[in-house]
């Protein structure tokens, strides 16, 4: 298991290959890809700007992976999350889960993604053609004109 906050995501097929070769017990591999949405309430999205408290974020991601592995008995999991500027349409985050059967894999994948969004100290600023806003938990925000 590993998690990273990175300027550049790995190739997804390499992540899947890497996790698959880790155990012959794997019967299901589940993947979540977070993508920069092109439209927001402010208009056309240009990019998202990600900021993290890297040490705390890394520790929290490790804790989440450990918890989920213990809770659902999955075989392996990988999280890679971008930092810095991510343009519309680009991938933001990969979560890959390997399990013996699909059911525990789906549950584990959902829990990792939900906890990542709720607990890991990473923040995003949405920059659109009309301005920017910090996205807050639950999607609320304060709007500002773009500087």
């Amino acid at each position, binding site marked *: 298991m590993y998690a990273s906050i990175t300027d550049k995501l790995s190739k997804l097929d390499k992540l899947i290959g890497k996790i698959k070769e880790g155990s012959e017990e794997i019967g299901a591999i589940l993947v979540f890809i977070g993508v920069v949405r092109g439209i927001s309430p402010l208009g056309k999205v240009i990019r998202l700007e990600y900021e*993290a*408290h890297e040490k705390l974020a890394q520790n929290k991601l490790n804790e989440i992976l450990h918890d989920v592995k213990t809770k659902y008995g999955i075989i392996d999991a990988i999280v890679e*999350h971008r930092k810095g500027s991510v343009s519309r349409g680009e991938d933001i985050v990969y979560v890959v889960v390997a399990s013996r059967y699909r059911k525990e894999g789906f549950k584990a994948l959902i829990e990792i993604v939900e906890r*990542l*969004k709720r607990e*890991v*100290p990473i*923040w995003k600023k949405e920059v659109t053609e009309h301005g920017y806003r910090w996205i807050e938990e639950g999607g609320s925000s304060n709007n500002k004109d773009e500087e």
Partner: protein
Amino acid sequence: MRIYVKFYAKIRDEIGIDHMFLDMGNNPSRLIEVIREIDRRMNKKIIEEYYVRRRLLISINDTLIDIDDDILLRDGDKIDIMPLPSGG
């Protein structure tokens, strides 16, 4: 007693600075006292609002704390004040 305080993301933008050093006198200070001192220095009631609404994360020396705990800050402590996460 000197404390280093760093602000992140939206809170940093609202308060208008990246970090500050606080001199808090000779005795250890409670977290809420430090928060009020930050707002007093900045002449804006920002951090206490986040604190009252439970809309922030705080770490002390790179360990996340439960903001409801009665925390005492000591000389040389580093506090990170962060909004709630919005990653993914």
